[in-house]
C-alpha cells in the first residue's frame, strides 16, 4: 500500500473518529453531580478537589468492597457483577445495574491495609488509596505517599515509587519520578498475580 493510498484511507477512518471516540468514552458523562460540584466551586470561588480516596474495589469472585482513604473498609450490600463504575466525591455511591445485588466481601489483602509485598519481598508500605481501574490496573497511592500500580487482586504490580501516576491506557501509563516524566509498560496479562 503506497503512502498516498494510506493517507486516503486514514482520512476515511478519521471520518469515523467521532463514533470511535464516543464509544471509547461512553462512560464519561457530566451529570447533575457536576452541576452541583460547579455550584459549590462558584459559591466558594475556588475549584473543589474531588475526594479520590473513596473507591469501589472489585475483588476476586466479583465481590465489591469500598475502601476509604483513611484505610477504613466500608462494605456495601450492593453487588455489581463487574459493572461497578467506582467512587463519588461526596460519599460512597456505586453505580450498579438495576437488579444486580448480592453480598459484599472484603478482599483480605485490602482489608488488612493492602498488599505489603511485591515480587515476594516485603514492602514497607501498604495501599492508602486506589484510583480508577483501567485494563486491569489502577494507580494506587501507598502509605509512604508515593504512587505505584495494583492489579484487580489488590496486589502491587509496579512498586510505589512515583510522585504521580496516570491512568493506564493501551497498557501504558505516564508517571513522574524525581520530577521527570516517563512511560511504564504493563504486563500483557491483566489478571496476572505477582506475589
Amino acid at each position, binding site marked *: 500500500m503506497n503512502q498516498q493510498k494510506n493517507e486516503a*484511507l*486514514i482520512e476515511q*477512518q*478519521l471520518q469515523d473518529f467521532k463514533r470511535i471516540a*464516543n464509544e471509547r468514552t461512553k462512560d464519561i458523562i*457530566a451529570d447533575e453531580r*457536576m452541576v452541583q460540584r460547579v455550584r459549590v466551586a*462558584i459559591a466558594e470561588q475556588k475549584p473543589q478537589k474531588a475526594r479520590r480516596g473513596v473507591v469501589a474495589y472489585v475483588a476476586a469472585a466479583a465481590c465489591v468492597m469500598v475502601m476509604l482513604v483513611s484505610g477504613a473498609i466500608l462494605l456495601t450490600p450492593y453487588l455489581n457483577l463487574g459493572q461497578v463504575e467506582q467512587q463519588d466525591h461526596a460519599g460512597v455511591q456505586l453505580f450498579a445495574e438495576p437488579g444486580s445485588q448480592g453480598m459484599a466481601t472484603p478482599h483480605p489483602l485490602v482489608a488488612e491495609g493492602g498488599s505489603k509485598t511485591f515480587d515476594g519481598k516485603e514492602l514497607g508500605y501498604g495501599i492508602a488509596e486506589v484510583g*480508577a481501574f483501567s485494563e486491569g490496573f489502577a494507580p494506587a497511592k501507598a502509605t509512604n505517599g508515593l504512587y505505584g500500580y495494583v492489579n484487580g487482586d489488590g496486589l502491587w504490580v509496579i512498586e510505589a515509587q512515583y510522585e504521580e501516576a496516570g491512568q493506564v491506557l493501551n497498557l501504558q501509563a505516564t508517571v513522574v519520578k524525581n520530577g521527570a516524566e516517563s512511560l511504564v509498560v504493563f504486563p500483557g496479562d491483566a489478571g496476572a498475580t505477582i506475589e
Partner: protein
Amino acid sequence: MQEKIDIDRLVRQYGTMVTKQAFFYLKDRHKAEDVTQEVFLRIYKKQPVLPDEQSEKAYILRVTINLCKDVLKSAWNRRVMPMIEGYDAPSPQSGPEQEALRSETNELLFDAVMQLPTIYKDVVLLFYYNDLPTGEIARILSIPEVTVRTRLMRARNRLAQALRGSIVDESAEE
C-alpha cells in the same frame, strides 16, 4: 444590564463535551473532571458575552484546551516524550478476519490520535470530533487558518505512518 450566565444550563449542555475533551488530553478521568469544574468556574467569573450556541461551544472549547495545556505543563512538568514515532503498529493481517481487523483498527486509530503531539491532537479533535470548520478552529487556537490545514495534513501523515499495515482497505475487499 447583561444577565448573568446560566451556568447550570452550560454544565448540562456542554459538561460531557468538556469532560471528554479534557480526557483526550489528560488521559485521566479525575483530572478531566477537575478541569471541567474549573472551566465553568472560569466562565462564571469572566461572564463572557456569548450570543449563540456556536460562540458558546467555541469559547468553552478554547477555555478547556487552554486549561488542559496548563495542567499538562505545570502538574506533569512535561518533557518531550516519544509519541507517534515510537508507536508500535501491529503487523499487516489478511484473510477472513476483516471485521475483527476493522474493529482493531478503530482501537489503534483512537490510541494513535491520543498519542499525537498536542499541536496535531488539537486540530484532529476539533475537526473530526467536534465537527468545527478550519476557520473556527483557527479562532479557537489563535493561529492562522492555513496553519490549521497544514497541521491537519501533517497529523494525517503521522497517523498514516503509525498505522501503516493495519488499515482495512475496504475497496480491496470488493
